[in-house]
């Protein structure tokens, strides 16, 4: 395996290559199309942000990529290549060799993601023992070093503490330490800061960024907060209703967003620099039902710029001016139809806000 890997690393091939990934769940209500045809690539050492509203499939996407979904009611198809090797559908016996060692994950809630009954040191040492065959003493030393890396004060003492004895921020750092223990090439961070205070969030995001640079690691940062992805990612993928609707390098996206969805999302965020009582833009309605998704563009029922075509025909993922920028919209921001509707809206011909009932 290592032979194969070294060989592959030589070539300039993306670390992760996802083609038409679909993850569906069989439920009592019917088939939940949580991820429905997502394709993307991730280069070595880059940070990809995945944003979207709650329920858009971000978590399912990242877990599908890692192969961590429960097998009982899950149906996956498509292809996920890690370092050129197909890993989708691999039995967990084989995936286990990758987990922790090649790819690892940081979860949203540091409170629940650490085993409450195991000492921090043990939890960090576990992958070291498993994957790197380290002796106890070595593992402990390494664990201590890792804790220091993630800036936990008094690292040696923390090894023998339990998660509940640590503050929320420290727990999240400890979790990052565990994820980093075996030096993975790919780190998934699923809303790593949503449960934390803003001040701590800033620290954690900064820490992930530093570690990524130090270790030349790729990071997939999942969040619903456009602010978080803006400052800490190289590339951004926007998800809506299980689909990838727009993807671009961070600066390109914010400068030239094409999807009305991305734009509306952006507009609904209150901005610090705006004076107080600035009217916020809203998106009416609510996210689509993933069992019976709308036929055409999934955002069309909520889109102020939607036309008949949007409702009937599903837009393909298209390339924008920038070769790395793609989007799925018939009438993207800046298109004549878009501009025309925008003008109508501003003139009040059409109600701007469609309040949901």
């Amino acid at each position, binding site marked *: 395996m290592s032979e194969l890997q070294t060989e592959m690393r030589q070539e300039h091939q993306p670390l992760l290559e996802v083609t038409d990934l679909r993850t569906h769940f069989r439920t009592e209500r019917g088939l939940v199309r949580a991820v429905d045809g997502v394709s993307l690539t991730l280069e070595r050492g880059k940070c990809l942000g995945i944003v979207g509203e709650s329920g858009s499939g971000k978590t399912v996407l990242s877990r599908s990529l890692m192969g961590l979904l429960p097998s009982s009611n899950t149906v996956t198809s498509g292809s996920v290549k890690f370092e050129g090797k197909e890993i989708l559908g691999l039995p967990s016996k084989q995936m286990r060799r990758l987990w922790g060692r090649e790819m690892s994950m940081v979860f949203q809630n540091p409170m629940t993601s650490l085993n409450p009954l195991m000492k921090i040191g043990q939890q960090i040492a576990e992958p070291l023992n498993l994957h790197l065959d380290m002796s106890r003493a070595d593992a402990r030393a390494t664990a201590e070093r890792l804790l220091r890396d993630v800036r936990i004060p008094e690292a040696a003492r923390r090894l023998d503490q*339990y998660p509940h004895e640590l503050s929320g921020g420290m727990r999240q750092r400890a979790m990052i330490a565990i994820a980093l223990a075996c030096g993975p090439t790919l780190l998934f961070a699923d809303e790593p800061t949503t449960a934390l205070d803003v001040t701590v969030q800033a620290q954690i995001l900064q820490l992930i960024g530093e570690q990524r640079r130090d270790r030349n690691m790729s990071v997939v940062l999942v969040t619903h907060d456009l602010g978080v992805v803006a400052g800490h990612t190289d590339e951004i993928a926007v998800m809506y209703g299980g689909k990838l609707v727009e993807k671009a390098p961070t600066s390109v996206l914010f400068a030239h967003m094409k999807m009305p969805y991305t734009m509306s999302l952006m507009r609904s965020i209150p901005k610090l620099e705006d004076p107080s009582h600035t009217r916020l833009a809203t998106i009416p309605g609510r996210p689509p039902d993933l069992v019976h998704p709308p036929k055409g563009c999934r955002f069309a029922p909520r889109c102020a710029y939607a036309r008949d075509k949007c409702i009937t025909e599903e837009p393909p993922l298209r390339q924008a001016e920038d070769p790395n920028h793609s989007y799925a919209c018939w009438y993207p921001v800046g298109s004549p139809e878009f501009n025309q509707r925008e003008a109508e809206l501003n003139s009040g011909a059409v109600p701007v806000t469609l309040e949901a009932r």
Partner: protein
Amino acid sequence: MAITLLFAVSALTFGAMNVLGDPLFNILGPIARDTGNPKSVKLIEKAKNDYNLDKPLPVRYGLWVSGFVRGDMGVQFSTDGQPPVTELLKERIPRTVTLLILGQLIAVLVSIPWALISASRADKFVDRLSTATTFMLVALPGFALAIILKYVFAIRLGWFPLTYRALDPLRTRLFQMLLPGFVIGLPAAAIYQRLLRTDLITTLQEDFILMARSKGVSKPRILFKHALRPSMFSFITVVGLTTGALIGGSIVVETVFRIPGIGSTLVEAVLRHDFPVVLAIVMIVATAFVLINLLIDVVYTIIDPRVHR
């Protein structure tokens, strides 16, 4: 708290047995009514004195409590010289305790692996089958299970003896308790299994299990090292609480299998209105219950570092 509880329990029992029965009649029988006969009167006086019956109820209670604390649980109500209650129970308690330990051991040893298997294959065939089995075991009253097991294993198959014999060597006696142990242990195992299975399934859905998987930890190791311990809390509580219920169950089992333990003794004593014996047993059971709950707290602190403060 524990002490208050014991006081309340004993006062209740003491009160009930004294108010609802005539202790003097229980002790002496018809002689208690034979007040015309000087011989009987002498006996009545003696009994009143021996059992403090002429003192008011609270005083008697106080005397009884102080005796109990010193390990003197009084004398059985019988003119035929049954041994003192303490002596009687000294002989009987070990049997019931053995039976309960055996039952709990069977329950725990059966339920843990069973729950692990079920939980790791949740909703698969094995799990559904085992759920059905637990339902059946839980729905079978203890006496019915005792009869069924006795019928199948002792009567039809003849693998186990029908009764218990106090004079047989220890190993034989343990063997004689095996079938009764199963009668006590199996339904408990079903309860534990269901509980532990549910908790394991909940735990297995926890983020930290996913975290462990994402570290590349193998499935058995996840089950044993990560999932089992955090799932044990209600299990332990219920094992403790069930011990009380099992003492109730042992009444039936001891009756069916003729084990002279405190369960069968209690039934007989209650029927004879022999309240020193009843009181002593109820108190011992309640004390054991309270102690077990204290013990559970200790066990909690051992397995859950979070309780330390």
